[in-house]
């Protein structure tokens, strides 16, 4: 490892480290524009010049282009280097419009910082400045090209790092222009990262435009809740309004970057229709009265009909504290629930997944980037968990093979092998592929007994599709060569058996190769936490649907709905509202303005992740992370004053500041129910969780600090392989098509569905099918079709593609289709129910 001296201080760094990085390790931040740790060096800006006094390199050189070597003596403050940097800044500023006062970057601008630190204070150039025409780049990114210093960061991220091809660099020399071929929205769902990366005010945050300088903002480290990956963000609020989200470095999870759903989906927190006061029978009440009344009514129902007449629903978008206290209350009171998942199959899949993860196989997103073979079973990364797509791309850039087994028309910003097989065929493909990869170990008797038994049970043919079978075997041979394979498994469209098989196969690969990883995608930002609680709650709670039926029959008299929107599950089902009407008591707690919040008699407002208290969230690899509160809460001043000065009245509290963290409200309810003997629900939460499920124990030992605490059991040698029936292909009957309900990057996720910027970019829902099926139905491109489902029908645009499984149709669970009831489980639609209109 090279040893060198920078500014008279010695440091040893790994071979290959650039001098700019070595200096950073000493806390010396050498000026830079083009260099970025995630993008590497290009030497485009020349502002990182330092003086090399001794060693293999001599003179003024670029510290980002020079690898640290033994014997180097470097000065960052040598007069020659400083003079060089001052000239560089001066020429970079030559054409700059000097418009900092109206520039959104002002206040956190690297160009401002380096101009000042470089000592360039007087303008000498008196000529005309070069100017550019700006482009419209869509709803998220604002373009002001005159401020560009040609550092190339944007283009390197957009094309090289992220793999999208509609933004880049044109022209040469003084005319060099960064933009698109023509005005139009940026196509990449990662485009928002350009805002963080651009060191000047060329690319700025459009929705946050003109809303405040950095020093006006309340900022804190927070977490993204728009999928299960748990990317780290920095949130900013001003005047009680969330106005901006930026990516925050977590080297184990998202690196520097986040996706646009995570960056622009936060505005649900500012929603003008968010109910912000406790409400009882249509009247606003105080928290004390609300808690007292709720406890009173629940006690009465419990006494009259038994505690089993009270049922509790939760969700996967609540903090760990909320989930934990909810579970504890149910235990103590003997209520039914809580049920955190809106469908039994979802619950079973989540439990199957997390009970099979352990510290040995679970890989983080950062680990996944180092894999050399990625087998993606039933996942559509860009649409389900966008940052996974960037992770896969980084692995691919390092040479990994990526194979996707999924019926959907999956797009990824990289070269990959897509085998569009139906959900029922994914198991078979996994079997065939892994079988081919490990059969040599099996025949040589190198597999442990359990793994060998599992191996012997694997399917060895894909009925009726020899070419596919051959393809799988040849990919299997590639997998055989890999040293660090990872299986990625989505939970959404796959059969339950696939979730189990993914875990089994990763264990089998591990047995054959010593190293193999497993990476699930889960439904919701705290699905892992909810799953851990559900696992400890065996026998499991009845499903939403069962509880609803019980309510309809009058066996359940009270329902507590904690941060869940049952309309997303039951809309369009007439019995649903009837069942709710039969209840004697319905208590709804939420931070979203769901269709339910307006209808209910008894409503208690909760806070979002951005307000009031820190909250814990467990991502899909079992990493518990903490989100700090950004602001204290309350109704945005812009709403309070309707755009003008807020009302001039004296209040003791913050207007609209009543919402409380869900866990805190539940704890207060517990106290009201139990009286003085009540436990310290929140203070003792971690202890109670650890008793419930030992996997929570790490929460007791350490504080949840960056980069998070893994809640996973140790790897054990005695993994119990499942013994599924030999995987078989369940084909769809010839006169039917299977309808897959899927996620889209924009338009289907619950929280961002309430945010105007993400609403603006969502596409209207459309039905997608394979060209052969379209032909069968006599449908052509551009047709509108009506799809009859259980009596009702919906009309949509049709999209015809080649790269998906036939016998299927794909439809997003779109916000705009809310109100449409879809049956549970695989949905088979008879061909005669699909018409051209």
């Amino acid at each position, binding site marked *: 490892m090279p040893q060198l001296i920078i500014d008279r201080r010695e440091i040893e760094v790994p071979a290959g480290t650039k001098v700019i990085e070595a200096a950073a390790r000493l806390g010396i931040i050498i000026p830079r524009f083009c260099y970025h740790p995630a993008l590497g060096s290009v030497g485009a800006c020349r502002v990182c010049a330092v003086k090399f006094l001794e060693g293999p390199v001599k003179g003024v050189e670029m510290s980002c282009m020079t690898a640290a070597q033994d014997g180097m003596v470097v000065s960052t403050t040598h007069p020659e280097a400083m003079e060089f940097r001052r000239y560089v800044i001066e020429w970079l500023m030559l054409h700059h419009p000097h418009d900092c006062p109206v520039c959104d970057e002002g206040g956190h601008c690297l160009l401002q910082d380096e101009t000042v630190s470089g000592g360039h204070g007087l303008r000498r150039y008196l000529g005309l400045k070069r100017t550019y025409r700006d482009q419209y780049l869509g709803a998220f990114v604002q373009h002001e090209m005159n401020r560009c210093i040609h550092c190339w960061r944007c283009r390197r991220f957009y094309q090289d790092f992220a793999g999208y*091809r*509609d933004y*880049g*660099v*044109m*022209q040469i020399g003084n005319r060099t222009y960064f933009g698109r*071929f*023509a005005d139009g929205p940026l196509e990449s769902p990662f485009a928002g990262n350009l805002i963080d990366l651009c060191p000047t005010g060329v690319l700025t945050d459009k929705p946050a435009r003109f809303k405040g300088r950095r020093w006006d903002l309340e900022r804190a480290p927070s977490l993204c809740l728009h999928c299960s990956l748990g990317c780290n963000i920095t949130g900013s609020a001003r005047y009680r309004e969330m106005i901006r989200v930026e990516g925050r470095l977590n080297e184990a999870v998202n690196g520097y970057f986040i996706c646009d759903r995570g960056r622009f989906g936060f505005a649900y927190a500012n929603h003008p229709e968010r109910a912000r006061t406790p409400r009882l029978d249509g009247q606003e009440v105080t928290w004390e009265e609300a808690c007292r009344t709720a406890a009173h009514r629940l006690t009465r129902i419990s006494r009259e009909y038994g505690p089993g007449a009270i049922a509790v629903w939760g969700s996967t978008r609540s903090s760990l504290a909320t989930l934990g206290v909810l579970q504890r209350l149910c235990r103590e009171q003997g209520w039914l629930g809580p049920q955190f998942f809106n469908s039994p199959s979802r619950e079973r899949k989540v439990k199957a997944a997390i009970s099979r993860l352990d510290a040995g196989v679970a890989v983080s997103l950062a680990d996944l980037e180092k894999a050399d073979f990625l087998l993606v079973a039933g996942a559509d990364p860009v649409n389900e968990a966008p940052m996974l797509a960037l992770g896969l791309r980084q692995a691919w850039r390092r040479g990994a093979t990526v194979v996707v087994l999924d019926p959907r028309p999956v797009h990824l910003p990289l070269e990959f092998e897509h085998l569009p097989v139906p959900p029922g065929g994914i198991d078979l493909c996994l079997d065939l592929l892994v079988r081919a990869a490990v059969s040599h170990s099996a025949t040589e008797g190198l597999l442990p007994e359990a793994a060998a038994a599992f191996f012997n049970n694997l399917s060895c043919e894909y009925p009726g599709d020899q070419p596919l079978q051959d393809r799988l075997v040849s990919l299997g041979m590639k997998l055989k060569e890999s040293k660090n394979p990872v299986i990625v498994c989505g939970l959404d469209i796959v059969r339950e058996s696939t979730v189990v098989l993914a875990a089994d196969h990763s264990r089998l690969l591990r047995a054959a190769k010593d190293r193999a990883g497993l990476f699930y995608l889960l439904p919701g930002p705290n699905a892992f936490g909810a799953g851990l609680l559900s696992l400890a709650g065996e026998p499991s709670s009845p499903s939403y649907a069962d509880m609803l039926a019980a309510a309809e029959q009058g066996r359940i008299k009270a329902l507590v709905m904690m941060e869940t929107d049952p309309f997303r599950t039951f809309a369009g089902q007439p019995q649903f509202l009837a069942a709710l009407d039969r209840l004697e008591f319905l208590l709804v707690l939420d931070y979203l303005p769901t269709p339910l919040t307006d209808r209910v008699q008894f409503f208690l407002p909760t806070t979002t992740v951005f307000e009031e208290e820190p909250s814990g969230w467990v991502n899909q690899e079992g990493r518990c992370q903490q989100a700090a509160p950004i602001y204290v809460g309350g109704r945005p001043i812009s709403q309070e004053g309707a755009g003008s000065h807020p009302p001039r009245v004296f209040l003791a509290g913050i207007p609209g500041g009543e919402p409380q963290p869900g866990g805190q409200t539940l704890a207060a309810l517990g106290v009201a129910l139990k009286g003085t003997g009540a436990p310290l629900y929140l203070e003792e939460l971690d202890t109670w969780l650890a008793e419930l499920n030992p996997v929570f124990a790490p929460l007791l030992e350490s504080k949840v600090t960056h980069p998070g605490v893994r809640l996973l059991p140790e790897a054990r040698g005695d993994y119990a392989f499942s013994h599924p029936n030999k995987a078989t292909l369940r084909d769809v009957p010839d006169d039917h098509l299977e309808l897959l309900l899927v996620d889209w990057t924009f338009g289907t996720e619950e929280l961002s569905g309430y945010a105007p910027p993400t609403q603006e970019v969502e596409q209207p829902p459309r039905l997608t099918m394979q060209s052969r099926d379209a032909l069968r139905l006599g449908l052509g491109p551009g047709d509108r079709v009506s799809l009859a489902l259980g009596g009702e029908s919906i009309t949509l645009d049709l999209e015809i593609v080649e790269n998906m499984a036939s016998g299927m149709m794909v439809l997003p669970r779109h916000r705009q289709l809310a109100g449409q009831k879809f049956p549970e489980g695989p949905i088979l639609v008879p061909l005669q129910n699909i018409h051209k209109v």
Partner: protein
Amino acid sequence: MLPQEIRENIQRLIEAAERPREQVINVFYILQKHYGYFSDEAVREAAALLKMTPLEVEEMATFYDFLYREPVGKFVIQVCDGVVCWMFHENSIFDYLCQKLQVCAGQTTADGLFTVLPTACIGFCDRAPAMLINGVFYGPLTPAKVDEIIAQLRSEHCDLVICK
């Protein structure tokens, strides 16, 4: 609309290459020759044929001096902008040319005959100052020589199309 014959020609060229991108510049030239300059339509055609995005085509097309993204005159005069030529530009040949034709660098004469463009070093430093007209070399230049060349091109309308 690109004539079918040209399209097929280009497709054959691309198919024969190991990687389509090897043929990028050749395809650009064929399209430029057909359209008279590398028009927006040419960019889109090139993108579709080479499986590139219009942006990627634009990135390349705007890098090179001999691809014209705007309409040019019948004769494209590329005056060497290299350092050696400038050392020999006594009384500035470049200015003389521009004044004579009544255009600035980058402009086309009103009659549509001449476009004057500066270009990177063309490698004729030994015969500086130098220029290319539709790819044909002229130099060392003097004002008298420039007069002569322009007069000849005006009167003879000779066809020097090479790089279009």
